[in-house]
């Protein structure tokens, strides 16, 4: 993805479903604001935004409520074609919890609309008016080298906007949203444009600085179009063809991005910006899995490109905390092991005291996110959840649709940029109180008790289209099997290590039953995520020598399916009893009750905490919602 594409495509939002238009039509007959907001939460292009806006208009025209969206009336005046803005804004605002009604002034009518007390705009009763002016709508005259004339032009432009603001405040009592100017890329001299008075570049710079200063002490706010256009590139922003054809102030490809930015401001004006960032740990704030890789094995810190990428995520989180965003952790991890990273790893920027709540457990993330929100007395719509795992993201989105869950690109170097590009924490002001807010929450990284489960996880799992593939060990899988056997610490019942040669021997031994497990879902192929080795222990019994799984697939009932598979083969070979052993280590507390949970009966325990378990192979285990492929 090129740099501007991340922004232009709203890459932090999930891609719209294939049946997007059908879903829009279905909304016309049902529902209110919540369903509209869910549909608007996808990365919609201009046409799709228009579809959602049409739905909102239709619902509104038939007197249907858009609750719980917050109503807001926005007037739009400007010097370009405004209709596309309104068509994109209503949908974009729904994404941010706002039921937006727009009024657009007729082309070229901005002065009359602002200044006439009984103009349609002033009668509209706008909560805010977006003054969408660009450099072509202001008396900025190119006067190369003429400093006095340049200053006059800038002052005249500011005075013009000042008169619009005064009119709107006097007649409609609305907040004005003022745009900084995106300088056009066409230079007069070249680099010297930045130096010479009277070039468009130096005039827009002077204008933007003065405009930003002018909102202090007023209710008016800035929409930093200059910053937005610079972010995506001025040559991308300004389209001479589209201006000439249709008087579009900027390239229509960027309309979704522009509209989202306006919607963020409107949402911030209504106090609806988000307040809490919940981060996953493994492969989100450091590289690797602490429970498997250990303190020395995870990647974080300077001197390593990947380590620096994760450091950037930590820096972003800390920056947000400095401006009052509360931080929390939700991670599938052993609490004690996860906390050691914060306490002991020298390269970590984030420390335990930066977090208000620290949830490291093996429960589903939706339940944990809900518990964090409850503990902080914040609404779910104040939460942002950052996680590299698409299945976890999907679960939280599905069960807690009010929580913002950014999509993340494959490259962790872009995690921080993507999070910040999403604008979840937009503010229209910043006070000392905001600065201190994160500390109000008594940052003791406390662990909170979970309430009931947040929602129907089973239904979500069924929607993943999971397919589990069972194969005996083979030459193709050998290297990966050996890697898992030597690396897995957490979901590992016996932590027995075997070399690749050992694995090959197991593969060839007709007495030994082996299984490699692969899991595929709608987000992709997770690869080999489980390994099982069973050996005959007596005439009609198998002992499970090795059973390990990747923690990435925890909570998806893969272990039930694996047990079903073992039982299937055991019965086929006349095996009547399965014997399981749990050998405790510092890392595998997660599976202490593994066999008990699966219905095994206790059959002894040793001094070092090891336990033995038995299961009659005639037992039937309820299947999990996934298709089974059995090979070999």
């Amino acid at each position, binding site marked *: 993805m090129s740099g501007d594409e991340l922004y232009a495509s709203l890459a932090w939002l999930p891609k719209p479903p294939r049946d997007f238009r059908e879903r829009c039509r279905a909304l016309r007959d049902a529902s209110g604001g919540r369903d509209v907001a869910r549909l608007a939460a996808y990365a919609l292009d201009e*046409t799709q935004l228009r579809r959602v806006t049409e739905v909102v208009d239709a619902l509104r025209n038939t007197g249907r409520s858009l609750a719980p969206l917050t109503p807001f009336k926005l007037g739009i005046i400007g010097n370009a074609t405004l209709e596309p803005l309104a068509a994109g804004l209503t949908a974009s605002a729904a994404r941010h919890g706002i039921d937006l009604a727009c009024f657009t002034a007729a082309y070229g009518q901005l002065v009359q609309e602002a200044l006439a007390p009984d103009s349609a705009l002033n009668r509209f009763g706008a909560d805010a008016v977006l003054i969408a002016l660009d450099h072509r709508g202001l008396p900025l005259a190119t006067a190369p080298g003429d400093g006095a004339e340049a200053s006059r032009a800038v002052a005249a432009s500011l005075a013009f906007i000042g008169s619009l603001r005064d009119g709107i405040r006097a007649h409609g009592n609305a907040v004005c949203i003022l745009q900084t100017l995106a300088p056009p890329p066409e230079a007069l001299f070249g680099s010297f444009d930045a130096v010479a008075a009277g070039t468009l570049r130096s005039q827009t710079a002077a204008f933007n600085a003065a405009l930003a200063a002018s909102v202090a002490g007023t209710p008016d706010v800035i929409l930093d179009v200059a910053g937005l256009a610079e972010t995506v590139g001025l040559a991308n922003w300004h389209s001479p*063809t589209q201006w000439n054809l249709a008087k579009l102030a900027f390239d229509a490809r960027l309309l979704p991005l522009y509209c989202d930015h306006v919607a963020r401001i409107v949402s911030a004006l209504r106090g609806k910006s988000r307040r809490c960032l919940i981060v996953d740990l493994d492969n989100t704030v450091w590289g690797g899995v602490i429970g498997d890789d250990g303190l020395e094995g995870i990647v974080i810190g300077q001197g390593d490109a990947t380590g620096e990428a994760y450091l950037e995520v930590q820096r972003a989180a800390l920056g947000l905390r400095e401006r009052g965003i509360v931080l929390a952790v939700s991670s599938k991890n052993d609490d004690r092991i996860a906390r050691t990273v914060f306490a002991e790893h020298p390269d970590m920027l984030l420390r335990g005291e930066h977090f208000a709540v620290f949830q490291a457990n093996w429960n589903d993330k939706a339940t944990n996110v809900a518990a964090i929100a409850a503990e902080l007395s914040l609404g779910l719509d104040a939460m942002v959840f950052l996680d590299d795992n698409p299945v976890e993201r999907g679960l939280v989105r599905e069960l807690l649709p009010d929580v913002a869950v950014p999509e993340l690109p494959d490259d962790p170097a872009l995690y921080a940029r993507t999070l910040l590009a999403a604008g979840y924490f937009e503010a229209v002001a910043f006070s000392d109180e905001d600065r201190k807010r994160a500390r109000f929450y008594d940052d003791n990284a406390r662990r909170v008790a979970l309430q009931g489960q947040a929602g129907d996880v089973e239904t979500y799992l069924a929607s993943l289209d999971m397919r589990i593939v069972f194969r005996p060990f083979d030459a193709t899988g050998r290297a990966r099997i050996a890697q898992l056997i030597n690396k897995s610490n957490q979901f590992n019942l016996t932590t027995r290590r075997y070399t690749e040669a050992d694995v090959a021997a197991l593969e060839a031994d007709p007495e030994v039953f082996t299984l490699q497990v692969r899991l595929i879902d709608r987000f992709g192929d997770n690869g080999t995520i489980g390994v099982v080795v069973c050996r005959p222990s007596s005439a009609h019994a198998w002992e499970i020598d090795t059973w390990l799984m990747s923690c990435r697939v925890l909570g998806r009932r893969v272990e039930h399916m694996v047990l079903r598979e073992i039982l299937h083969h055991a019965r086929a070979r006349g095996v009547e009893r399965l014997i399981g052993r749990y050998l405790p280590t510092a890392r595998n507390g997660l599976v202490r009750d593994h066999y008990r949970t699966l219905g095994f009966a206790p059959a002894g325990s040793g001094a070092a905490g090891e336990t033995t378990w038995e299961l009659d192979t005639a037992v039937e285990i309820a299947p999990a919602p996934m298709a089974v492929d059995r090979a070999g």
Partner: protein
Amino acid sequence: MPLDAIYGKLSDILRDQFDDDDIVARPELTAGDVDGWDSFAHIRLMLAVERSFGVSFSASQISSLRNVGDLANLIASKTAG
């Protein structure tokens, strides 16, 4: 790009733009035949076509189009070779 592939893709774009699954891109189709195909919609359609085919049109090319046949031929000339 062969013309039939262009027409297929244009049908998808038109259906998407005008929210009407019955539209079929054919050479003689004009704006007057489609509900909502006004001058603004025309610009949006052109932008969607540009994006979808990875081509760009000048203002004069856009204003000289008489029907979908002209549009398909223009796309073909830009995607040839």
